[in-house]
């Protein structure tokens, strides 16, 4: 068991090193000069070159890369070219919003996708199954930004039930902040709840047709016990996998939702950083988001051990 865990952890370190290298290379390879962006469209090449030297961006790439890795080993993500603050501080300021948004979105997706997936599996072939499947397919086809714009147009702007954008005043209460996050979380949750619904349905259908489920029915167990105790626990592994993917996706895909809803979170930060070529912020944010993906996957791997004795036995 310990060897299983250590193997997973060492893989995590290797992946993070590769990610750090790849984001460095990609951010340097794409054309665009942060100094020119900072100075604006009216700047000359000489102005931009002067600023670039001041910012240390004219140092050889290998030197910049070594500095980046050395900082990373000390958990220092560098200094933002545009924000005048450390990347660590910039991310910390915005982390609460993005984590809250992703968490609320995930909670909504889990609370709708899994129960509805179970229901349509149990009612397979009925009108309810067909209607919900069609609705799910439609919802999965809608782009997140379009869902966001519709939510802004009607529940927010037209009916006034929710704020149009933002995260509230600096002194807003947690209730006000939550109120601001409801619509963005719905936009984020919708495609993921469809994914969870379909995965749950497929997984449950496989299990519900198994011999031991037939035996459980023959023994006279209640439908609730059969579905929730015997079938669901055996169907849980793929559902856990997709939940982990959805959780990681939530963190990474807040970019579009935060841009549409004007939320000053990590997603918005990385979009601005890419447009401005703020290399430290691009690198730091992508490393953090990748780290979240990797840690979430590790956590899901550990959950497999907890819920499935077959995997636990294999790990020993």
């Amino acid at each position, binding site marked *: 068991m310990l060897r299983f865990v250590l193997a997973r952890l060492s893989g995590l370190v290797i992946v993070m090193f590769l990610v750090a290298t790849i984001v460095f290379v990609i951010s340097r390879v794409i054309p*665009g000069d942060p100094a020119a962006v900072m100075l604006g469209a009216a700047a000359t090449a000489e102005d931009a070159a002067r600023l670039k030297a001041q910012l240390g961006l004219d140092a050889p790439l290998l030197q910049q890369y070594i500095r980046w890795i050395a900082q990373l080993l000390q958990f220092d993500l560098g200094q933002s070219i545009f924000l005048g603050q450390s990347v660590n501080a910039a991310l910390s300021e915005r982390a609460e919003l993005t984590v809250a948004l992703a968490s609320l979105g995930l909670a909504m997706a889990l609370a709708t996708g899994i129960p509805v997936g179970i229901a349509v599996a149990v009612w397979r072939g009925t009108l309810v199954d067909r209607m919900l499947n069609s609705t799910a397919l439609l919802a999965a086809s809608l782009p997140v930004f379009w869902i966001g714009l519709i939510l802004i147009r009607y529940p927010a702007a037209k009916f006034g039930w929710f704020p149009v954008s933002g995260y509230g005043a600096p002194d807003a209460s947690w209730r006000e902040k939550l109120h601001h996050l409801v619509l963005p979380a719905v936009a984020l949750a919708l495609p993921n709840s469809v994914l969870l619904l379909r995965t749950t349905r497929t997984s449950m259908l496989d299990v519900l047709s198994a011999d031991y489920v037939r035996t459980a029915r023959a023994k006279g167990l209640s439908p609730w016990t059969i579905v929730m105790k015997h079938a669901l626990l055996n169907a849980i592994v793929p559902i856990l996998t997709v939940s982990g993917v959805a959780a990681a996706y939530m963190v990474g895909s807040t970019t579009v939702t935060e841009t549409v809803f004007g939320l000053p979170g990590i997603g918005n930060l990385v979009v601005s950083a890419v447009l401005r070529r703020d290399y430290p912020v691009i690198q730091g944010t992508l490393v953090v988001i990748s780290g979240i993906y990797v840690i979430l996957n590790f956590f899901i791997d550990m959950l497999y051990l907890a819920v499935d004795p077959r995997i636990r036995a294999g790990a020993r």
Partner: protein
Amino acid sequence: MNELRFVPVPNANTRLEGVLSGQFDVADALSSEFYDRVKASERVAPFVPKPGGWILLVMNTKQGPTANLAFRQAVQAVLDHDSIMLAAFGNPDFFAIHPGLYQAPSPFVSDAGANAFNRKDLARAKQLLDQSGYKGESFRIITSQQYDFVYKAALVAAENLRQIGIKAELVTMDWASVLEKRNDPAIWEAFVTFHGFVPEPALFTILNPSYAGWWDTPAKRAALDRFNSIVDPAARAQTWAEVQRLFLEEAPTVQLGEYYSLVGVSKKVQGYQPIPLAPFWNVSK
């Protein structure tokens, strides 16, 4: 007012809905397409601050076909400013087309060189193109969809140029890449950009020989030196006319038009001044 809160909202549609719903009191940089919705609102009034900035087609005077004066004059002669600006902004209330950079009541208003401006003269353009000895080289316009009015202007300009046989092609990239790529004279013949309003003509970036486009001729240097050495305002205005005439005759850049933006202001706000970079002094609610 005890507090002014400036809230960055990247998405223009979200800014619009925010001011229409009352969440914001002022929404800046709204698209001209939203004008009718803002006008129809009971809560919000539209403002179009003037003067505005300029949309420019900057040409590479250093190398390639655009290094040739007759070629640049051909480009200038064929461009249809009305179509370009209408495509870029959609509503004539949001742009103005005039040969000089400035309109009344600026002291720098002038018609000098106006006969070269917005001619839409295909015959004259073809004649100038032949004169330039154009051999069918690519006319690469670097542009970006990040600013949709820049992109649309470039699209229509490219079509105008194709009418006289210039092989115009758009090279599209994000704005940060445009700012870098334009420093390399080997890879473009033109780019479309926007220039913020400057009340003092000496601040017009195209006059700087180091700025991409690299307009630098003895006549221009002499006229600019004269302009910059004069202190008397009336004399400066007269000398500026000479610089403007050269700008239009030598056509290093084509000033396509002046553009304005839309600001939505809550009707509860008093004292808002519809000028560029509006100050919020003395506003109340």
